């Protein structure tokens, strides 16, 4: 299987789907699912088989080449799996919407572009796929119209800023080293001056930081997540945003020579410390802002930013201190985050689908009775998000915390941990307001979510638990990635780690929890029977509770907000908005040059001529 063939399937599939869509919608759905599943199968078969190939005969004299190694396989399998699941999820979700052909082909296109990104072996094809991903994403975000348009604009402008920075960085590397093949750059960069290395790091840091929504560059994310069609939000949050992480890992690889060899260049280390601190900032602030949100997708979106912080923290810190545990934690968290955030967005989407697009937390409630599968998905999702033991999020967070503590950076650890508590508060609100509490009258007769939605939710739910119990499965691959990046190998077992300063054993934990739960359950079962009563038949201390609706869920954390609200403004976003306003205003001012009076225009011409002559006459600079 050649890598270019995979890309051909992926991109060709996208086009084909569009064409099929013109013929019949059934055919299109089938094709979309088949192609995405075929990609999953292909990558599953390719496990552990490294590939490398030049696939293009020279793009402006640059050889474009592809490769498949541990890192790219890891990301690729996640991309195709999540892509396939969200396509399956879309089958019902997108039915009866308009422009579905466009939607499906763009979904496949985005997946293909992401595959391209992780498979590319040189920076220029990386950039090409990166840009394709950006504009496809833009189109998909804008799909929902209305408010989505502003979200899309915000996304694309920031994304463009990132990509022009990246373009400058890439070409600067090319000019310096006369190659764009990543391995060759990696070997060349070891000899570069520290200042140049820092420049490269910063410029790529900006590009990937925007994509990964690191704190001062995050403002595009909440609106985009919230406004994009939900199955795409899943892809966007799960993998697309995390292409930033992939990028950071790529930089890590490129500077890997310095890590393994003579020790870290001080600039590299400093940069990564900054990155780690930014990651910590990214964990804390958005998590607290998330508590303020009343829109389910906005809330999750802010968590998307916050969780990105963990990855950046892990990777940045891991590189800064050459600590493979933190690095592996960061990488692992990427995968875990992808799984549970997709799960969460899907459960929101399932609710949206049945309630007709409602995602305002204050108007939902009690849906556990109507949509149990979605509830279980959401429950496991938030467990993963919090990092409750036996879910996947726990393991990766544990790795990062441990590395931070053992390396002696308790403040970073504190930021990460306090982020977790913020997470608990906000995701509980999410779960409670959506699935628990009282079921509003109008939702009394909702149907269960359809099978094509339950299936992805079930798959992802089991993945959350599976990786929580047996973290060794992905960790082996991640360990391979770490060694490929030039880090020392970890002592990974199927159930966790062993180490001097603290071991993790998920099997013990599992055993303990299962046994204990069983005991408790038996105890519970042996006790006197209980009577199931109607939900609203409850004790209100004599107060009158209106039967039809009482949304006591509105303003869930009001006491906290009255304290915190002044501090939880998104200052950065306000700043950017002001900046955009200023740019707009100055553009308007510049336009006034064109006064419409031809006399002025002729004056400009003569002025130009006269100033040319005058300058040459007076200073003779030319």
């Amino acid at each position, binding site marked *: 299987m050649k890598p270019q063939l995979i890309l051909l399937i992926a991109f060709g599939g996208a086009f084909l789907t569009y064409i099929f869509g013109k013929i019949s919608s059934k055919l299109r759905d089938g094709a979309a699912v088949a192609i995405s599943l075929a990609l999953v199968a292909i990558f599953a078969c390719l496990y552990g088989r490294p590939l490398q190939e030049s696939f293009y005969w020279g793009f402006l004299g640059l050889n474009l080449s592809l490769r498949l190694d541990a890192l790219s396989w890891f990301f690729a399998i996640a991309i195709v799996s999540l892509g396939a699941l969200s396509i399956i999820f879309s089958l019902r979700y997108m039915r009866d919407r308009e422009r579905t052909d466009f939607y499906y082909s763009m979904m496949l296109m985005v997946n293909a572009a992401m595959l391209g990104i992780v498979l590319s072996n040189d920076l220029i094809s990386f950039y090409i796929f990166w840009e394709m991903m950006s504009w496809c994403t833009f189109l998909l975000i804008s799909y929902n119209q209305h408010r989505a348009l502003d979200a899309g604009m915000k996304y694309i402008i920031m994304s463009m800023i990132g990509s022009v920075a990246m373009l400058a960085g890439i070409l600067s590397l090319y000019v310096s080293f006369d190659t764009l093949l990543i391995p060759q750059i990696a070997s060349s960069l070891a000899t570069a001056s520290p200042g140049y290395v820092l420049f490269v790091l910063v410029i790529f840091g900006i590009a990937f930081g925007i994509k990964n929504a690191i704190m001062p560059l995050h403002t595009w994310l909440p609106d985009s997540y919230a406004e994009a069609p939900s199955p795409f939000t899943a892809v966007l949050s799960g993998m697309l945003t995390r292409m930033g992480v992939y990028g950071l890992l790529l930089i890590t690889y490129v500077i890997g020579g310095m890590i393994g060899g003579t020790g870290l260049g001080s600039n590299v280390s400093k940069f990564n410390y900054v990155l780690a601190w930014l990651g910590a900032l990214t964990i804390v602030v958005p998590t607290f802002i998330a508590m303020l949100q009343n829109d389910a997708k906005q809330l999750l979106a802010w968590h998307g930013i916050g969780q990105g912080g963990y990855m950046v923290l892990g990777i940045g810190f891991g590189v800064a201190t050459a600590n493979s545990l933190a690095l592996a934690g960061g990488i692992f968290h990427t995968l875990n985050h992808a799984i549970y955030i997709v799960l969460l967005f899907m459960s929101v989407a399932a609710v949206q689908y049945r309630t007709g697009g409602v995602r305002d937390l204050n108007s939902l409630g009690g849906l556990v009775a109507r949509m149990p599968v979605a509830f279980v998905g959401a*429950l496991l999702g938030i467990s993963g998000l*919090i990092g409750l033991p036996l879910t996947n999020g726990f393991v990766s967070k544990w790795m990062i915390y441990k590395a931070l503590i053992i390396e002696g950076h308790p403040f970073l650890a504190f930021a990460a941990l*306090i982020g977790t508590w913020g997470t608990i508060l906000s995701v509980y609100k999410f779960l409670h307001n959506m699935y628990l509490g009282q079921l509003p009258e109008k939702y009394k007769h909702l149907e269960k979510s359809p099978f094509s939605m339950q299936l992805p939710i079930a798959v992802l739910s089991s993945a959350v638990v599976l990786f929580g119990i047996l973290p060794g499965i992905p960790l082996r691959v991640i360990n391979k990635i770490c060694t490929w990046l030039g880090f020392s190998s970890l002592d990974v077992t199927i159930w966790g780690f062993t180490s001097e300063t603290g071991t993790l054993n998920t099997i013990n934990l599992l055993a303990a929890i299962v046994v204990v739960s069983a005991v408790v359950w038996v105890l519970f079962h042996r*006790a006197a029977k209980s009577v199931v009563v109607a939900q609203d038949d409850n004790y209100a201390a004599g107060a009158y509770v209106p039967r039809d609706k009482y949304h006591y869920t509105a303003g869930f954390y009001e006491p906290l907000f009255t304290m915190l609200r002044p501090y939880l403004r998104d200052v950065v976003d306000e700043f950017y908005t002001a900046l955009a306003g200023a740019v707009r205003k100055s553009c308007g001012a510049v336009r006034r040059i064109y006064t419409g009076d031809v006399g002025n225009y002729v004056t400009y011409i003569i002025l130009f001529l006269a100033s040319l002559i005058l300058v040459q006459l007076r200073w003779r600079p030319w």
Partner: protein
Amino acid sequence: MVGRILQFILYPLVALAIGVFFLGLARKITARIQWRYGPPLVQPVIDMIRLFYQKSVSHGPVFAVGLIMSLAGSIVVVLFLPFGSICPLSGSGGLLVVLYVMLLAPMGIALSGGQGANPNISIGISRKLILALGYEVPFLLVLLTVMTHYNTISIVQVVEAQRDIGWSIASLPLFLSGVSYLLILPAMLGFRPFDVSTAPQEISSGPLVEYGGKYLLMATIEHALLLFIDIALFVNLFLGGAGNPIIFFVKMLIVFVLVLFIHAAFPRLRIEQAIRYLWKWPTALALAGLIIVTIGRS
């Protein structure tokens, strides 16, 4: 092997016994401080047995699952804590795991309560979670101080280290942390002045309002275990743990009585007041400790 299994079975029971004893003790001592006679020490046990056989009302599966999750979580946490020399789950992740497993209890109660669909529960849970956020800030700082100071995440290793160099609380940074821990302990245990989330007169005991029979029983057990956990953690981290369970128990008792004095002496705080308090002095102390430790390390 048999010993280990015995540990697994007996230790939680012991912990439960201590917890229940503390519950009774709390009511007794509080009453005495307030010039009342108070219920007998075994009153909680009697209540629990009664609850076991009492009929109850359920609001759906999650109502039960949440509680089971909560209780199981608490028991597992107990297994992580060294009790004297007993520590069944010593090598399974250390303090970091404890931190997270401790989350199961409030999460479970919250889940179960959420299913209850009673406004009082919602208000109670909201307060409980906010309060948790309040005390977690100093609590995390304290734990981080300890872990950084001893450069380990294993509680057993912390205890062992103290055996060599003396109690943690004797050294300056950890003294600050210890004091901070003590200051937030009532909040962690849900004792007055931090019992606004379960205020019986105001919101009908908040999350517990819909519980009856076995549900209330489990909530009670969970609370009892919480008493054990939080105090045992303090003893382990700051008072050098103990070589044998008896001494350990004595240490716990002393700490608990200290907490009770605070409990009995202060009126209930509003939630904002509570948070403001928690984020002021305990946090400042814990932060100071952490800074000192970090500086000392580097």
